[in-house]
């Protein structure tokens, strides 16, 4: 049973990528929807298996590590697999209605979409630094292709810029991997961790870690290396922006978090932890401020991603050299932030896409009067905004609460400024959008009404991110499941 599920999870995306490469847009869409059904069912089943029986290590093709590729299927990984399935399914369905089938190049959306999905699953499950690199590259290349799908020259420019940043990031990461391999003779994350635990720390491996963090932070668009993100996420088609903001940046962050949690205690330092936290805090303020200033709807949402990613980096200072209880709290906070931001941001980009489609403009003040015509999409946007502001009962609030608790418990009160101030700043830019939509006199007399199907998808995502706060406890209890046989974390 598990064998089939794992096979389904890893090979459907690749097979579907090849299949859709050979067809046009409409047939590709039909094939993709079938594939989405399979992937969602497989992800749900795997999640149920792990929830019932605990996690497991899965040697691919029966070859054990260090020779073969070993995948780790723990609670955290399976939670992210399920999250990916949800968000990708939503974006895929939305894209099927949203993209214009008559534009020839849109047919490449489907294969890129599937390569992206495959890469994400590899990253969630990978336990070996090189595999993670492969997953990371797959994600980046697919993501760059998806950005370029926007068509205009501006989109191509943004895509090239994104490609440069992504390649530089990968290169730095790969250098770090090579250094690790030279020092430990192993690429397996748990192998390196156990070597370090036996005090085989090698001079200079701290440098390798810093190199990898630099690469991953660049790919995650951590301030001040965020400049590539807003143009790319802003110009891409809305379903693509949803995928990029919700999932792609989380892939590289996830690797950084795993590296830190496994190796940080021995190879990390207080300075590194605080530096990452401070950059995260600055991202929160700078991203929020830029989102507040921009007058284009999608730019606002894109800069909001820069800010929201910043919160994730509080994980590093809050897990450095502290008690087990606080480490768990910070990890839970990080996970909730990843999930709730993924759901809320996807909902936001998809509903923003609907709003733009309706008023025919990306400008914020074109939204006047849209509350009469598209109240449903506006409401989805609003609900997602509540989660970004970190107000209860959303998942964003649950994450903020746990971050607050961890900050207070470790006496690092300065993160309170980031958490509370950042929340207010995000309220400022979200309310700017609400405010624009409450204006009554509109100079547009023709509104296009997108189909109901386009409107319902972001609403479901927004409701999920809202409900996450109420159901945080059960979600986190699955996430905390370690391996059934007691190995690993």
């Amino acid at each position, binding site marked *: 049973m598990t064998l089939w599920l794992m096979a389904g999870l890893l090979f459907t995306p690749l097979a579907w990528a090849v299949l859709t490469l050979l067809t046009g847009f409409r047939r590709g869409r039909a094939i993709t929807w079938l594939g989405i059904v399979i992937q969602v069912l497989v992800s749900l089943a795997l999640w149920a298996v792990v929830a019932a029986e605990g996690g497991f290590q899965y040697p691919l093709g029966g070859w054990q590590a260090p020779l073969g590729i070993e995948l780790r299927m723990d609670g955290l990984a399976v939670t992210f697999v399920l999250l990916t399935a949800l968000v990708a399914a939503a974006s895929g369905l939305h894209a099927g209605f949203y993209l214009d089938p008559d534009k020839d190049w849109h047919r490449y959306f489907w294969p890129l979409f599937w390569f992206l999905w495959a890469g994400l699953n590899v990253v969630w499950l990978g336990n070996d630094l090189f595999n993670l690199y492969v997953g990371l590259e797959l994600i980046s290349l697919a993501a760059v292709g998806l950005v370029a799908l926007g068509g205009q020259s501006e989109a191509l420019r943004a895509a090239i810029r994104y490609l440069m940043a992504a390649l530089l990031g990968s290169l730095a990461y790969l250098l770090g991997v090579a250094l690790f391999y030279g020092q430990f003779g192993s690429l397996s994350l748990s192998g390196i961790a156990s070597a370090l635990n036996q005090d085989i720390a090698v001079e200079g491996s701290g440098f390798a870690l810093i190199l990898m963090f630099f690469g991953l932070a660049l790919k995650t668009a951590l301030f001040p290396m965020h400049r590539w993100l807003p143009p790319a996420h802003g110009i891409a088609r809305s379903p693509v922006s949803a995928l990029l903001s919700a999932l792609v940046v989380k892939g590289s962050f996830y690797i950084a978090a795993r590296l830190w949690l496994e190796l940080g205690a021995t190879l990390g330092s207080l300075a590194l932890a605080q530096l990452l936290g401070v950059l995260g805090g600055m991202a929160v303020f700078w991203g929020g401020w830029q989102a507040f200033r921009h007058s284009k709807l999608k730019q606002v949402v894109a800069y909001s991603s820069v800010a929201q990613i910043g919160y994730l980096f509080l994980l590093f200072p809050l897990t450095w050299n502290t008690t087990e209880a606080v480490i768990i709290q910070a990890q839970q906070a990080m996970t909730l932030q990843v999930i709730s931001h993924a759901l809320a941001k996807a909902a936001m980009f998809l509903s923003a896409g609907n709003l733009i489609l309706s008023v025919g403009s990306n400008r914020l003040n074109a939204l006047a009067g849209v509350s009469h015509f598209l109240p449903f999409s506006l409401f989805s946007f609003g609900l997602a905004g509540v989660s970004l502001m970190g*107000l*209860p009962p959303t998942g964003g609030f649950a994450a903020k609460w746990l971050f607050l*608790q961890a900050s*207070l418990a470790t006496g690092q009160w300065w993160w309170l400024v980031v958490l*509370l*101030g950042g929340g207010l700043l995000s309220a400022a830019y979200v309310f700017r959008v*609400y405010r624009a939509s*409450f204006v009554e006199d509109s100079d547009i007399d023709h509104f296009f009404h997108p189909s109901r199907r386009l409107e319902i998808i972001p609403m479901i995502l927004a409701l999920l991110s809202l409900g996450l706060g*109420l159901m945080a406890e059960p979600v*986190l209890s699955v996430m905390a499941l370690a391996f059934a046989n007691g190995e690993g974390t």
Partner: protein
Amino acid sequence: MTATALLPVFALMTSLTAAVIIFALPEQKHRLRTFVNLTAAILKLLLVGLMIRGVFQGKAYGIAFPMIPGVEFVLRADALAMLFAGLSAALWLLTTVYSVGYLENSPNRSRFFGFFSLCVASTLGIALAGNLFTFFLFYEMLTLSTYPLVVHRGTEQALRAGRTYIIYTLAGGAVLLFGIASLHVLSGDLPFRPGGHFADMAPDLQMPLTIVFVVLIAGLGVKAAIVPLHGWLPVAMVAPAPVSALLHAVAVVKAGAFGIVRVVFEIYGLETAGALGLLSGLAAIAAFTILYGSVMALYQSDLKRRLAFSTVSQVSYIILGLCLAGPVGVAGGLVHLVHQGVMKITLFFCAGNYAETLGLHRIDELDGAGRRMPGTSVAFTLAAFGMIGTPPLAGFITKWTMGTGALAAGMDWVIAVLVVSSLLNAAYFLPVLRRIWFGEQKDPWREERQWGRSETSAWLLWPPLVTAGFLLLAGLLASAPFSPLGWVELIITREVNL
């Protein structure tokens, strides 16, 4: 989990379900929407009534489940909760009736009534919350659901007011969250408990607890409109009349005041708060707010703005009452939670009637309005005399009880505050009444609308008449067991432990 344990959940669900249905209904289905609204309001009143009876008989209602690791979501119906829940359920029904009449033929009614229902659901949640965390959850939900109501008209002025409102309340919310999170780190998840949690605290906790108290009150004080955190309230007057009625009488300001009551009684405990020397500071701020609000009200020429400053002043009676820290004084404060609500909602309904029927907004335009709209004017007069504290109306009961409590507590200066405040109340209400009843109409009414022989639409006329009846009865029958005062005495014997 029995059916009685779920009663609070059902009561909450009625308005939430109503909100969802209303949002889903198309804009032009006005009759169906009114039906849904009224059904939900009546159903909720019945459910709350059932709970009140049950609580009176000593039954316990409640539900709790873990939400985030270390924090529970708790709904619980105790006598104090029912005081606020009863008020909001009763006034919701009347405000719904009023809004239906008020918003006739205006756009965006679907949006309005949807958020209106969410707002009332939040209010009930605030009443039933069993710990600070749950309280905060509904407190912020209230902020979000009132914003669309404040900016409902979509004019430049309304949008500006909405911005002021949201800046004040969200900043207050952030401060409150900081206080709650700090308290959580100091002593874990604290359910509301009569007598509080810190009766025998470690000496090294004194300093942090004092700081957290100040932070919590500062956070809650924004909604309770304590000076200098009251700036949003007069500005928010641009909202439609039923919204102002709701903001001032039931939902927003009361949420703040109720939160302060919970923190003082059931987190810190009156004795501990007194021992830390916190109550005298709070009393001073409340007294200042009472006088400041009344003085500012004198200078307003717009009727609704005058009423707004009157609210600033009156809500602090509740807080001043708590600080008297004796059974009688506390009763005076708590009962004002209900009395102020009933009186203020009457005044806002009436102000809305003058504006909707005759187009009058300024006080100097009201000359002769009494002859044209006798029903509305009688209700307005009763409420105004109630505010001044004339026997036998509700406001008199408050002031009398508080005065007795102040003497018992040996805080004689409070009497002076009450007297001065009553004089100021008279000074800003009596000129309005003089214009209404004895003024000669000089100009034709600005925008008169006719409703046959009736002075105004029945939807608009009956709610203020009913609330005016309430405030008369609350005064006359103050010693009956289910009067507001009777219920407050029940709360004090059962839950405040004085």
